[in-house]
């Protein structure tokens, strides 16, 4: 009798496990297609955890700076020698850059450009946390809707594009990095002879490189090309540095190729970012169908 009962219990347990696994499977696939979200759960998790992450992150950074300081003292002689030679190199570079800066100044005045940074209203934020154990790449920053940060705003550093705001809460926001496989950024090759457009997305196979896809096989893209945002799509303003082409590989289909980019931003050492809360740059007009008038003869 007890054996029968044990068997029934065991069957019941197996059915419960199968039901739970199936339910979670459904949630994963519906959530990945945007048909299922848990905004309340996410909001509660962020509201409770983000302040703690903020405190722990600050303590961690203090410890990091202290240990880095001690290490610098230990290696000060070697650094001094290196810095001396670097000063010499920088003097040469400075001469060259002064020349370029004055040329740049003249060209800017000629074209009537304003200083590039003035076209954006920026809100600076500190990175509070980053979860490395997932296959996606998101960070939490300590600015949210209270600071004017909204969903889909572009996030940058002086080096280039970081990503976009995926979700904004009161004092915190989730930022989807350029390296996240779900991100897609409209880009263009900066070289004047090329200007090839493509989409840069995260590369799930390699967290250090992004991938510029949908490039025709005969397109003029070479290693070392700088890639910047194209401004299409309305999220990212035009001209923000995205990365540099490291190598080019053929797509499986054979008609297209893709470029692997070394991101302009060092995502390993990302501590502070700026959110573009307002861009005065006019976004490109949507593509419209040209008016095709029928030929005079054809109308008759």
């Amino acid at each position, binding site marked *: 009798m007890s054996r029968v009962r044990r068997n029934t219990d065991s069957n019941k347990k197996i059915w419960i496990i199968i039901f739970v696994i199936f339910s*979670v499977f459904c949630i994963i696939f519906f959530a990945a297609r945007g048909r299922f979200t848990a905004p309340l759960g996410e909001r509660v998790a962020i509201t409770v955890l983000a302040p703690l992450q903020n405190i722990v992150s600050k303590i961690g950074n203090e410890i990091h700076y202290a240990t880095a300081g001690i290490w610098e003292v230990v290696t000060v002689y070697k650094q001094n020698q290196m810095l001396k030679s670097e000063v010499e190199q920088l003097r040469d570079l400075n001469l060259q850059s002064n020349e370029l800066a004055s040329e740049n100044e003249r060209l800017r005045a000629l074209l009537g450009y304003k200083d590039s940074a003035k076209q954006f209203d920026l809100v600076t934020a500190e990175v509070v946390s980053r*979860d*490395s154990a997932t296959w996606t790449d998101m960070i939490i920053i300590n600015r949210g809707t209270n600071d004017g940060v909204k969903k889909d705003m572009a996030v940058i550093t002086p080096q280039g594009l970081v990503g976009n705001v995926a979700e904004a809460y009161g004092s915190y926001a989730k930022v989807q990095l350029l390296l996240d496989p779900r991100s897609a950024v409209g880009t263009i090759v900066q070289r004047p002879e090329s200007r090839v457009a493509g989409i840069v997305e995260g590369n799930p196979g*390699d967290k250090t490189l992004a991938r510029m896809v949908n490039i025709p096989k005969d397109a003029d893209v070479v290693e070392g090309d700088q890639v910047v945002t194209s401004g299409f799509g309305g999220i990212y303003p035009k001209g923000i540095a995205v990365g540099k082409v490291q190598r080019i590989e053929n797509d499986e289909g054979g008609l297209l190729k893709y470029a692997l980019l070394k991101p302009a931003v060092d995502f390993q050492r990302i501590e502070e970012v700026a959110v573009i809360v307002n861009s005065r740059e006019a976004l490109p007009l949507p593509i419209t169908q040209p008016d095709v008038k029928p030929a005079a003869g054809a109308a008759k």
Partner: protein
Amino acid sequence: MKYCLIWGLVLAGGYVLQTAFLPLINFYGIGVDVLLLLTVSFGLLNGQRLGGLFGFMAGLLQDLASGTFLGTNTLSKMLIGYVFGLASQRVFKEKFFLPIMSAIVATFLNYFILAVLMLLLGYRFNFLQHLQMAFLPTIIYNSVAAFPVHLFVCWLCDKMKEK
């Protein structure tokens, strides 16, 4: 209820540590998966049912807080908690190598489940390259952190049993 609250706090603390402090020693964005190690140790000490439940909660917390695909870590950690819970009657819990070997097996299982889910979701990646870039560093980090985490979970379980 009190135990649930304590283990909830442990999970939250583990997640905060994993995301806000340990990234300082990350290797190209890869670091210790504290929640996975907690799940493994908890499963080994408390059996399949509680192990699965703990893994479910740990994964759900990670999914909600990190903004990744909802449910992926919930599923992988729940299964891992359950599987290691099944082994709870068959192992010597005080052995030094138990948490380390368990961490290696759990990291592999977690990687395998998440890789299959990513493929099912339509994301393609170079398996060998990813193995080298993400899996190997994670194995090393998790093996190093496994023993202290296991000691902590053992200590907390003992304290709760005393009470």
